[in-house]
């Protein structure tokens, strides 16, 4: 180690301890962001706000939602940063979110902002439904590629389609709720009746259908686009199809928990989460972000995807979730035996 390097390291160490010393505020932030991204997000935030220290509590979407709901009467979190909007709507309907319009919210794509006058939550990035189509297996079976959701009910695909179970997968639920919005209630269920005839099985996770399509276990997997792009980049013979009727989507979003001890620091954090800089940071993992015009194209990502995203009614999805899942389970989960 040269003297210069030594000096640099001790300077860095000093800087770190200085940051810690300056940390006047501490925020408990609940999140479902991938663990590997957390450090990067906190670092970027602390570069501009060294005085606020983030204490992460991370778990999967389902678990962190359940945790927040369980702590309803005694909230432990100050901010929720990076949780599905449908989950945040649940929290909002429990009166757990502090409405706040972060500085610069008008610059975001309005699709990504809560419709209330003072938004209760703001979006970060989106994951979008798509169909993964294994060209090699499909050719072996003599299938023609589908171009729309309706095509998937065609008899030629019988037993060749896999989709996530909406009762256990957020991706599965956004598919079902988007079909009900696209086709309307009656036609939506009729469509799913037809689709059910072709479904080989329902998986528990949302990324599995695409990975199963990538490995040729099934020719067609209903999943999300980013997963398909990743598998394709890994060398799988996949085509990512964006059905012509439009595709459902959900987003990761941010909100302040009502009753936080340090509202000022929480607002500063939320202000940061919608900046251009933050959105560029999200773009590393997500192809669609809330800040228009900055997303760099991700390899193998379908080009027309942004236009195909439906005008998702999150309120409809959240308020009817229990009823939709009950109806879905009654129709398709009960007759379980695929002999």
């Amino acid at each position, binding site marked *: 180690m040269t003297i210069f390097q030594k000096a640099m390291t001790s300077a860095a160490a000093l800087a770190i301890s200085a940051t810690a010393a300056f940390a006047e505020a501490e925020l408990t932030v609940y999140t479902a962001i991938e*663990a590997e991204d957390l450090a990067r997000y906190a670092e970027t935030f602390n570069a501009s706000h060294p005085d606020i220290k983030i204490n992460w509590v*991370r*778990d*999967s979407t*389902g*678990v962190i*939602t*359940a*945790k927040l*709901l*369980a702590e309803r009467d*005694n909230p*432990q979190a100050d901010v929720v940063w990076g949780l599905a909007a449908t989950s945040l709507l649940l929290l*909002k*309907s*429990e*009166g757990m979110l502090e409405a706040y319009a972060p500085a610069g919210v008008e610059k975001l794509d309005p699709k990504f902002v809560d419709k*209330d006058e003072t938004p*209760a939550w703001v979006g970060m990035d989106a994951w979008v439904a798509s169909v993964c189509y294994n060209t*090699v297996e499909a050719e072996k079976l003599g299938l023609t590629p589908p171009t729309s959701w309706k095509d998937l009910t065609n008899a030629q695909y019988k037993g060749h389609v896999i989709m996530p*179970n909406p*009762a*256990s*997968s957020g991706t599965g639920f956004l598919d079902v709720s988007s079909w009900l919005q696209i086709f309307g209630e009656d036609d939506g269920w009729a469509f799913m009746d037809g689709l059910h005839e072709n479904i*080989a*099985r*329902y*998986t*528990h*996770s949302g*990324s*599995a*259908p*695409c*990975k*199963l399509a990538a*490995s*040729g*276990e*099934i020719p067609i997997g209903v999943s999300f686009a980013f997963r398909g792009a990743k598998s394709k980049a890994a*060398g*799988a*013979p996949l085509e990512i199809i964006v059905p012509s009727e439009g595709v459902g989507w959900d987003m990761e979003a941010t909100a302040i928990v009502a009753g936080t001890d340090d509202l000022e620091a929480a607002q500063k954090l939320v202000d940061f989460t919608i900046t251009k800089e933050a959105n560029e940071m999200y773009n590393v993992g997500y192809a669609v972000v809330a800040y228009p015009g900055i997303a760099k194209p991700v390899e193998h990502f379908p080009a027309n995807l942004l236009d195909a995203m439906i005008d998702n009614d*999150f*309120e409809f999805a*959240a*308020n*009817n*979730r*229990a*009823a939709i*899942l009950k109806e879905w*389970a*009654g129709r398709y*989960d*009960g007759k*379980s*035996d*695929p*002999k």
Partner: protein
Amino acid sequence: MTDATQHTLPAGPSIKGKLSRDDIIMRGSMVVIGLYLLITMVFPLYAMLSKSFSTFQFDLSAYEVQVSDEAGATFSNPIRLNDLNEQLKVLEDSDMIAGSDGRLGVTQFFPDFSFRSPVKYRIRNTTDEGRFLVGSTLTDSTEWVELDSNTFRRVQLRPVKSTGFGNFRSYFATPALSNSIKNSVLIATISTIVTVTLAFWFAFALSRSCMRFKGLFRLIAMAPILVPSLLPGIALVYLFGNQGMLKELLFGASIYGPIGIVIGSVFFTFPHAFLIISTALAISDGRLYEAATSLRATPWRTFWTVTIPGARYGLVSAAFVVFNLVITDFGLPKVIGGQFNVLAVDIYKQVIGQQNFEMGAVVSVVLVLPAILAFAIDRFVQSKQVALLSARSVPYQPKPNKKADWILFSYASLIGIFIIGMLAVCQFAALVKFWPYDLSFSLNNYQFDRMDGGGWGAYYNSIKLGLLTAIVGTAIIFFGAYLVEKSNGFKTGRAIFQMFAMLPMAIPGMVLGLAYIFFFNNPANPLHAIYGTMAILVVCTVTHFYTVSHLTATTALQQMDREFESVSASLKQPTLKLFGRVTVPVCLPSILDISIYLFVNAMTTVSAVVFLYSPTTSLASIAVLNMDDAGDIAPAAAMGMMIFYTNAGARIFHLIASRGILSRTQAWRNR
């Protein structure tokens, strides 16, 4: 003696054995370990039971509405929604049951509602408990809220919390859920019949023939115990899945469903059935066979009148153990069950998929019943099995019979190929680059850090959990067993302790894990801090596998004469010194057995810990589950085989270590 002297004698104190310091220490320790079991098992189970009765219901009487005329100016008199419902008969009582996430639209109470009409509506809560949403904004005050028709249709009522049988009622009214009972019992029954039959003939071949390689076969038969129950599921995907190597053998049937669950269950329960049955066959009396031969009974008749009756308790016990293992198993049906719903997976779906903890608790209660029943019958049968082997018994010695030996050898080989084949397929799949498109070998699938599930860290966590469970668990369990076996008096306390120690066996892992969430993830619980740490995983695993270890320990301790305690007492030596200087060294073989049992199970268990791991304490077995869940099947197979090799290594280490230690501590056994 005269009356007078009798009167003068004072009434003496009632005579009571004096408690020595040792007795106090031992009782104190027993109370401590009893409290441990109370906190780690009984309280969580109670929390779960009460959760299953916590319901959510819509209370229509908590809301009042007013409707305006066409002009939107004058409003009708306030009317409660329950009165409105009584007039119109829109909803039945059964419609009032909801989940925690339930919502009820209000427009259905107004038959002539149109969202385009200029009619205005007012709604308010009549009590503080009432809650409703306008869109997704919560209103819980008792103020009137005035809305136009278009907004009024976005009003949703929220349920309030109460207690009752509502969850159970809606469970049995939902076929998608209650069908699972039938499914679970069905596959458990079929698997039990198949496994016990196969294991019986395998054990028969090993104990009643003169075939070769018995030791090798015994070793192979025990291999499935070293892997998580998920692994046979993954092997079956590679064998019979849509890209499977042998998929033609199924003639178009799908492996995803009951067929897959049964084949996989046979694989992972085989060693358990084999162990019990071969123990039962080993204690047969050779004289009965000699009698049968001298009475000129045919081998067939001998089989039915001597062999089977001798092994009947073993067979029944094996059947209930297998039944219990299959019905409570979660990993296998999760991987290969397809659309075939079973109870254990339902719990997972309700809790992780829908955050419906109340319904998860209901399914748990439903699952506990058959598990406890099977367990109780097994204990009852085992208590019957005594004294088959008397002092005059002659051990049975099989005689060579070329034809029978060959048939049994071929049969045992088939079973051996089945077991080794399943493991080999997983290892092969783990090493192939991209099945089925690129069959060249690579180590890509071992780059766990690039997959979901926790990476190599999860593997090291598992080893840590295994070691901690083995050390902490063995210490607690053996000491607990010692206190129960060797302390004096205190009968009630010992009986209660014994009951607590037997209970974990009857509680399925999924149920235990869920109960831990309810109990430990409660901010009011002072032990809340251990939630999400390695400590809760260790505690849960020790408790989950308490019973078998406890039984092993008590069996070993019962072989030691109680005179040791009397001698040490007369020499005025503290009992704990005796425990450390005599009891532990003498029982060392059993102590080592307990620790390897705990280690292996901590490495393979999925069901109990699946609800309790946190991102920093992910485990190898959970990683297998999550990687398979995400569709990364080959890495899942690779991680599963890592568990296998680790456990096999631990077994070998255990063997060598116990040889070394035993030769030093057990020399007194051979004079």
